[in-house]
């Protein structure tokens, strides 16, 4: 087996790991804030729960990128395709936007959402705005996901052409 397949798998694994870590930190941060608000006012559980869910998407995106990649290179089917080191590195690079973007956006979305929890605590009627502020960070996770998916699909097209 060549190094190519190893680089490709490593890329997928990093996308899943860092996306998951970003989400875990983000969701954990919001969870602390949300618990603080619910300790004082349990009726706000629904509103703060939405904010806590928001930073969880990076982990899903990382999983999606890893799943797509593993399917494309035949790992999921049990018959991996032959890849040169250069092709493997191309797949590796394709996963980096999701890995790095997922980690950083997950952490910062968590902070934005936790600040939003504070806003909900003081002014529950402004919960929509709190969600929008946190959701803005999502843009960059989505961009990272798109570029990783586009790159994986097009690298496959180049290799199979």
């Amino acid at each position, binding site marked *: 087996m060549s190094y190519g397949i190893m680089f490709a798998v490593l890329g997928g694994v990093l996308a899943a790991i860092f996306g998951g870590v970003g989400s875990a930190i983000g969701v954990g*941060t*919001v969870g*602390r*804030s*949300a*618990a*603080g*608000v619910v*300790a*004082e*006012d349990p009726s*706000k559980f629904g509103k703060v729960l939405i904010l806590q869910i928001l930073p969880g998407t990076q982990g899903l995106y990382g999983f999606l990128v890893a799943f797509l990649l593993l399917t494309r290179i035949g790992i999921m089917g049990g018959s991996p395709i032959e890849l040169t080191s250069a092709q493997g590195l191309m797949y590796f690079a394709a996963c980096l936007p999701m890995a790095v973007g997922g980690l950083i956006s997950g952490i910062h979305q968590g*902070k934005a959402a*936790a*600040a939003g*929890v*504070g*806003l909900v*605590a*003081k002014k529950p009627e402004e919960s929509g705005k709190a969600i929008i502020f946190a959701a803005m960070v999502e843009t960059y996770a989505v961009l990272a996901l798109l570029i990783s998916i586009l790159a994986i699909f097009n690298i496959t097209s180049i290799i199979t052409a």
Partner: protein
Amino acid sequence: MRETEYAFAVARVRANEPALLTEDDIGLLISAENEQSALRILADRGWDEPADGKDIFDLQAAKAWDMIERSVPDPALLEAMVIGNDFFNVKAAIKAVFSDIDPQEYMASPCLCDTKTVIKAVTENDFSLLPDYLAEYADTAYHRISGGESGQSAEMILDKASLEKRLALAEKSECPLLTDIVKLGAVLSDIKIAKRCAHTGKKRETALESMCPVEGLDIEALVRAAYEGKEIREIIADAGFTEIAPLADGDFSALEMKCDNLITEMIKKAKYDAFGPDPVVAYYYAKLAEIKNVRIILSAKAAGVPTETIKERVRSVYV
């Protein structure tokens, strides 16, 4: 400690902030017909009458402290906020014991050392019962009074130790807001000591020994100026406390009020922080300021003080 460690505490503080009295509430209290009307307004704003004969102010302070104590992850921050009350309790217990009155009703809370232990230590003259940070100073203060020295000299020992411990703990807690608040309190205390000692003709050395060193403040120059009857405002301004400097040569009540209002201005900056210890410290000091305001208003109402005079005495509010 990472600032996100405070996320739980900050969220609880934010959830409690809407219950703080606003400027409008204070205005309503001031314009209340009498003390009973003011108490009814307070009851409407969540100031419940204590059921167990506890003081209404103690109950409010205890509720705020209970919330903070259960939420803050750094014990150093908690200690820095209340350690002053331990020294106050020792002072009150010593005074009460020598005056042959019950010290319990003079005890302040929240505190780190159980008040019963403080009273027992002072009553039995056994200061080994107290924690290390209190024992030495309590022992010295007690024996100064029993040795015939004035109660004021014992007070000075405990006040200085209190400020030094608060400053050290505030710095350890890595909360610049708390450090600034404690420093301001130390400067105010130093000004009072220098002027009082000069006024009562005490030795300069006594004044210097009783003052708490504050970074940037030249306490020797302060004492010199106070004893020579010169203005001290420049010394205070040079130390970086420009906001209170213009009032440093005036009467203490105006200076104290300025310091209280300055603390409120300082804590207002933490209103928009989502993490870190500052919002918690801000809430605690906001609650203390609120209690002080209500105390001023209720006492004034009970004494029939005119509304305009009450307005002049009331401190600015956080929300």
